[in-house]
């Protein structure tokens, strides 16, 4: 861009940057507020005295959190779910993407299979049939319900990303390997996968974030709190009140009664894993957001 040095242009810059900074602050301040709340005293939080900085700074909420066995149980369930879910995703995606990256000429069944895959991504039977199916499989209260149901709904997207990546690898690589007598397994594992680290990192991060954040399947497939993953556990913190008779006063009292500093501490801890992988996400997610591309 050309650099113009006129005064009006400079004023425009200042205004522009101020707006951008304020908007950026609105993205981070709510999270900062949650941290402040978790480090404040209960009375200060209940009185609404907390603003940007903690009032009566203390770690009571975090000490109290340490006593909460279920929080750590749920945290551990979420970790297991992420490892199993992202692991399975990492194995299955390249295995499916490689044959499907072939043209119909090289692999006759390719198009039918591809359209079947796309169909499972775009259509679903809805929540109730899914619930009844999983119940029928006897997977209620099993971590595999979380891993396999969630995974099946996200894997096709990841496969498409990987197909697009495979197709952009130079054709001559595979041809050279073929000349040397390499088979499809060798080409996939020794040639394609090592070259596809960026896209495999991207889909793994997507899978990790998805499995960490997903809460609904924990709620419907787990019948007891002890099996809840972390997000479901946090989601259930809100006390349930009989919906038909709830009044505005009750709603207000409910939000006042709840232990806001402790809840804030739980919310903040649950945020940390995502914050930890965030630098990697930033590095890789650019690949992922453009699912398709404009082709000639």
């Amino acid at each position, binding site marked *: *861009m050309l650099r113009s040095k006129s005064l009006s242009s400079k004023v425009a*810059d200042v205004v*522009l*940057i101020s707006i*951008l900074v304020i908007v950026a*602050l609105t*993205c981070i301040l*709510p999270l900062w*507020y949650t941290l402040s*709340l978790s480090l404040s005293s209960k009375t200060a939080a209940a*009185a*609404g005295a907390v*603003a940007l900085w903690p009032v009566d700074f203390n770690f009571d909420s975090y000490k109290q959190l340490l006593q909460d066995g279920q929080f750590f149980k749920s945290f551990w369930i979420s970790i297991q779910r992420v490892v199993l879910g992202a692991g399975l995703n990492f194995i*299955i*995606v390249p*295995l499916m993407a490689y044959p499907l990256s072939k043209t119909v000429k*090289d*692999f006759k*069944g390719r198009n039918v299979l*591809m359209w079947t895959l*796309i169909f499972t991504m*775009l*259509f*679903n*039977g*809805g*929540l*109730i*049939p899914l619930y*009844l*199916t*999983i119940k*029928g499989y006897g997977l209620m209260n099993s971590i595999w319900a979380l891993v*396999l149901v969630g*995974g099946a709904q996200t*894997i096709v997207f990841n496969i*498409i990303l990987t197909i*697009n990546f495979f197709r952009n690898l130079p054709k001559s690589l595979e041809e050279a390997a073929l*000349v040397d007598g390499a088979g*499809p397994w060798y080409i996939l594992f020794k040639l394609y996968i090592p070259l596809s680290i960026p896209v495999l990192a991207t889909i793994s991060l997507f899978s990790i*974030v998805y499995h960490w*954040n997903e*809460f*609904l399947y924990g709620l419907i497939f787990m019948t007891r709190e002890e099996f809840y993953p972390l*997000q*479901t556990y*946090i*989601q259930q913190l809100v006390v349930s009140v009989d919906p038909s008779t*709830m009044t*505005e006063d009750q*709603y207000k009292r409910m*939000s006042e009664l709840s232990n*806001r500093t402790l809840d804030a501490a739980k919310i903040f801890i*649950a945020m940390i894993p995502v914050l930890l992988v965030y630098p990697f*996400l*930033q590095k890789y997610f650019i690949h992922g*957001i453009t*699912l*398709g591309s*404009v082709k000639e």
Partner: protein
Amino acid sequence: MRTKGFAKHYYFMLAPGFVWLILFSIVPMFGIVIAFQNYNPGQGVFGSEFIGLETFKYMFTLNDTMNVFYNTIFIAIMKIIGNLIVPLVFALMLNEVRYMGLKRSIQTIVYLPHFLSWVILGGVLLDIFAYQGPVNQMLGAFGVDPVLFFGRADLFPFLVIGSDIWKEFGFNTIIYLAALTGINPALYEAAGIDGANRLKMLWHVTLPGIRTTAVLLAVLSLGNVLNAGFDQIFNLYNPLVYSTGDIIDTWVYRAGLLNLQYELATAVGLLKSVVGFILISLSYYLAYKFTNYRIF
């Protein structure tokens, strides 16, 4: 080619993934027959009496469901419009910033909320907008009486729309920014030589340069007309705001899994899936027609 006999191996590679998708995506689809049955959980899908379209007729007589359809479409369309325009404006503003460090810092901050779950952000928002929370404190400084934000049916849809835009605008700028970097710098130079100022360049170079991207995003968002955002609303709503905030997905959850009206919930869910499938297929078709975009 030396790829004869590879197809057998390709099927081996695809088998585990397809078994997974058949069991967890395709089998549940057959559960939609419940919508046409007088479903009896004891007898299951195969033993229950077939009643045709009764449930669908019943569905259209319920005020409840009509209201839910309206809420869904209203919230979803408002979100689509906001999620197209706000990121575009933000990307254009960000594009004018010449300090690379500042630009990158702003980007890092505004992308973050996208990766946090609605469980977490729902908790954060309920704190921020609590009766004694910081937003009401700020309003109090201007002499405004505290507002019970998430308890007000008239405000709820707009809080939902606004907070969704807040969560996603940063991430959505990525695509626009990618398009902006694709504009040939020579065009700006030429415009500068012709005496164009920054506004003129914006109008005559930048906007035409990202028109295709904007059209593409608008067309693709057609597929979201029935997706008002289950995760978000489920974590923010309460019985006080059902009249304006209840959407198809949250209604299906309550009708099916809490009130055990399996047939009705399946029918409503099926209607949503079918219409959604048609819309998304149409959007892909139009995207291909207009911009040559293909997902694979």
